């Protein structure tokens, strides 16, 4: 089985575009051992905080440590699950409501493993990668987001 383990940069500046996701899917059409893909997308919600609507999240990170964590999470997933390939992209900088800030993409010959691997990756990313989110409110004030 073909695997892809090279270290890649995970952070992308600003929102992740739907076209980027489409292109990423298209690149997998030459990998004919794949039977199932599972994709998770995080999208910035227009939550209302103390009466004010969130208009964007500005992401920052402890970048060196975060890239190391992403690498460890990726390696752990390859060790745990028989996946053909997996990809993680996370925004840094400003992402407006309705835009995509996280794109996790898992592919394997059969479907069972893609559910499990995707769930593992997303939960690990949320729990252990030092990324911080400043929720920008409609009056230009802000609050700091925390994952639940």
């Amino acid at each position, binding site marked *: 089985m073909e695997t892809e383990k090279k270290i890649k940069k995970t952070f992308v500046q600003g929102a992740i575009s739907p076209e980027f996701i489409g292109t990423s899917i298209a690149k997998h059409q030459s990998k004919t051992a794949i039977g199932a893909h599972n994709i998770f997308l995080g999208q910035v919600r227009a939550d209302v905080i103390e009466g004010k609507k969130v208009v964007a999240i500005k992401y920052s990170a402890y970048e060196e440590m975060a890239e190391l964590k992403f690498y460890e999470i990726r390696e752990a997933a390859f060790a745990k699950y028989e996946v053909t390939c997996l990809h993680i992209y996370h925004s840094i900088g400003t992402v407006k409501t309705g835009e995509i800030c996280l794109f996790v993409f898992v592919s394997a010959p059969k479907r069972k493993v893609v559910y499990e691997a995707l769930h593992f990756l997303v939960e690990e990313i949320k729990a252990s990668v030092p990324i911080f989110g400043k929720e920008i409110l409609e009056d230009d004030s802000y609050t700091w987001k925390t*994952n639940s």
Partner: protein
Amino acid sequence: MIITLKYFGLIADLVNTHEEQLELSVDNCTSQELCDTLQSKYPGLVNTNFAIAVNQLIIQSVTPISNNDIIALLPPFAGG
């Protein structure tokens, strides 16, 4: 010894900087002693929840700190 401190998110707001060098009159100390020093310097940290990374590894218990270590104060994560 000299150590580098990195502050992120809410913590950077509280201490009003993202990074600083700190010169301490001792050759080594514990993470707990460092925390006490920082909380004296920045009272805003006293009731604030943060994790500590020493050289990019999050510490789970009291850990020795040495010369040239990079210590990061990390508020709750918000990735995704």
